[in-house]
């Protein structure tokens, strides 16, 4: 049955030459704008009214629009996915640029800390998934690979939102970048394990991880080289360099999507290669413009809409909580036990708290795996997805708490607000 409004519209379309047919699909730009405005309003309301991180508001807006009301359905999410890919890609690019090898050379203990917190987190989550939830070795490893790292989007945005500066902030960003690198390596291996476990096809088991890892590295490396070559021929100021960085990052996102290679991995690699290969420091100081961080709002709204809130039962919620707790304890212990005397213990604890977020990257990694085996992955990946769902609302607050408690977040009197 058509609505009276649609009937009027269609009659006008028949009578008037210029009048367009009734639009049956939402234009992607309209959707983008609605997600942006909806997320922005929700984030700002929660920030002003409750002192919560804006990120929680963005995710809540997505959850309201998606699983809770059904307005954002699967088709809408497919339309919004390119925007979310771009946002996640740019955030992962920035995360990759934080993987500071020179710092690690000067302070190798940081590498030890990263290995400790990532390794302990992987082992604890794997053991929990295997023993407490009863997942198979392959899916337990997948759950661990997906959730072992911190959420780069949340940590970066949290630091950005708080305009934080200091050792806790810097170490959180570095550990997040290193954790991402470790998680991506494990993720590609796990892809092979899942293939072997599900289909027993050893060609897939070897070729798929190679395609994912090799493709991402190649796209990342080539695009980073391209950006550096173009930047070397540019004589403009910071704006020109930023333009080069964003334009080539968008190219990398597009190519990764065309070749069915994970966008987050390709852009992360691009960031790493930019950081390592920029000997003349052509793009070392190019920062993404503040306006681009608006894209991240769309990412968090889309992430909120992808949360499997409908699958929540008492049992799955308890399992998700269990994963969060063992993961949190492992990360905290990893940081504190391996931290040495570089930083006071209180600050090390705050670093451990600040890297707790678990979010968009995990959900997008889960989406990559579920695209391979949709029939089984929904149940098998429910555990990490529910854990990510719960942490979407807690992680940004933990990150914010750590930065504020460390005294590194900018106070109101310090000047500009984001």
């Amino acid at each position, binding site marked *: 049955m058509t609505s009276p409004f649609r009937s009027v519209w269609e009659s006008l379309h028949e009578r008037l030459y210029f009048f367009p047919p009734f639009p049956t699909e939402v234009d992607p730009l309209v959707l983008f704008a609605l997600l942006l405005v909806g997320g922005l309003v929700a984030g700002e309301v929660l920030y002003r009214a409750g002192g919560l991180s804006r990120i929680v508001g963005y995710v809540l807006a997505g959850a309201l629009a998606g699983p809770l009301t059904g307005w954002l359905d699967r088709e809408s999410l497919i339309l919004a996915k390119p925007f979310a890919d771009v946002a996640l890609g740019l955030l992962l690019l920035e995360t990759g640029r934080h993987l*500071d090898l*020179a*710092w690690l050379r*000067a*302070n190798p203990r940081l590498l030890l800390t990263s290995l400790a917190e990532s390794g302990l987190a992987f082992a604890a989550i794997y053991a929990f998934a295997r023993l407490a939830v009863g997942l198979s070795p392959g899916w337990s490893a997948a759950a661990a690979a997906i959730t072992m790292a911190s959420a780069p989007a949340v940590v970066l945005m949290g630091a950005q939102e708080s*305009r934080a*500066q*200091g*050792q806790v902030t*810097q170490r959180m960003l*570095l550990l997040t970048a290193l954790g991402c690198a470790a998680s991506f390596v494990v993720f590609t291996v796990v892809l092979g394990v899942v293939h072997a476990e599900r289909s027993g096809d050893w060609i897939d088991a070897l070729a798929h991880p190679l395609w994912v890892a090799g493709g991402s590295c190649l796209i990342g490396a080539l695009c980073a080289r391209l950006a550096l070559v173009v930047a070397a021929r540019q004589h403009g*100021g*910071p704006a020109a360099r930023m333009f080069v960085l964003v334009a080539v990052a968008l190219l990398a996102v597009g190519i990764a999507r065309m070749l069915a290679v994970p966008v987050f991995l390709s852009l992360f690699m691009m960031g790493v290669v930019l950081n390592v290969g920029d000997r003349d*420091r052509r793009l*070392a*100081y190019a*920062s993404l413009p503040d306006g681009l961080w608006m894209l991240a709002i769309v990412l968090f709204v889309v992430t909120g809409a992808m949360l499997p809130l409908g699958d929540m039962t008492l049992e799955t919620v308890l399992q998700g909580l269990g994963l969060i707790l063992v993961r949190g304890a492992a990360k905290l212990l990893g940081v504190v036990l391996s931290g040495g*005397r*570089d*930083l*006071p213990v209180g*600050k090390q604890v705050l670093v451990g708290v600040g890297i707790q977020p678990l979010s968009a990257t995990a959900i997008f990694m889960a989406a990559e795996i579920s695209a391979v085996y949709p029939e089984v992955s929904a149940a098998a990946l429910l555990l990490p997805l529910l854990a990510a769902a719960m942490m979407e609302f807690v992680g940004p607050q933990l990150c914010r708490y750590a930065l504020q408690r460390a*005294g*590194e977040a*900018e106070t109101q009197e*310090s*000047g*500009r607000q984001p």
Partner: protein
Amino acid sequence: MSDLGGLSFTRSRPLSLGVELELQLVSLRDYDLTRGATDLLAGLRYDGSFGEIKLEITESMIEVNSRPRDDVGAIGADLDGLRAVLVDHCRRNNIAICGGGTHPYHHWPERRISPGERFAYLNERYGYLSKQFTVFGQHIHIGVTSGDDAIWLTHALNRHVPHFIALSASSPFVDATDTGFVSARLNAVSAFPLSGQAPDVADWAGFLDHMALLQSCGVAESIKDLYWDVRPKPEYGTVEVRVCDTPLTVERATELAAFAQCLSRYLLRERPPVMPAMQALVARYNKFQACRFGFDAQLADPLRRCTEPLGESLPALLACLADDADALGCRLQLERLRNVAESRQGDSSWLRAIAAGSENFHELTRAATERFAEPSGYRQGP
């Protein structure tokens, strides 16, 4: 309000030296100032063998103090030891340090006041000026044997403030702009109400009277509140020259200490006539000339009622100090300063030359950090 009894002058070894350097803490990621002083000090394992490392008013600054020394070689060794300790420790925290009187492009509202009662008091008292005080200077202490000598030497050194400014100037850039000054740092200091020159008091008793007046009027609680260009420091038994920008290298900082020591010896030995009241008439003008034009400054001489080009008077003064330099064992340091004065190529010129060849101010600060990180000729041990 502090007790004036606490202002008794501590006798110290004549012409002994001490140097304080305020240094910039910059992020190795983008070379902007970063907040990190408290964490750096908390994680520092250092036995104090070269002197002290302390907080300064904002978290983006750190201060190093040499031990009291009799000769500039020992001062250089202390400063280089402190430099090496800090460079290594900062590197482990992804931070670099550098000299220079100003950071070329930092955004002052982003600065954070360091913890501590004194810093909180200054922030409360001076408002935004306290964050804008994120500028970096070298203070040189010269030991004297009595309060009266300290007051006399304070007045005598005041006349040479432009010389110290020109030789140390290393702050041409502020807010990513070439200010046209060789030392823009002192413009930040001038905003404070108790900056400027010591008053025309004849001796230590006169100084105590003046302090009592300031205290009773609520103007200043202690000598710490007085940001004079040159001031007595009774608890150390020294006269403190406070107008120098922090140089880009330990060598230059040591050479400036040598200049202060030789000049003080010369002044105390020769006792030239000093007329603080006359000098005060042109002090601000002469300081401006030195900050703005450096070696090209034209200084007003109120006694001879004429103008004196700093670029001519300074090399002559340095030549005149040769005997004192020989006696104090710092001829080499003074010769180097003379070369600087004659070539008119100080740290400001170096910064401007690097900036001209760089695409951005990040690279300029990077070059300054690398220059400061180089071991100096005063390095001890392997």
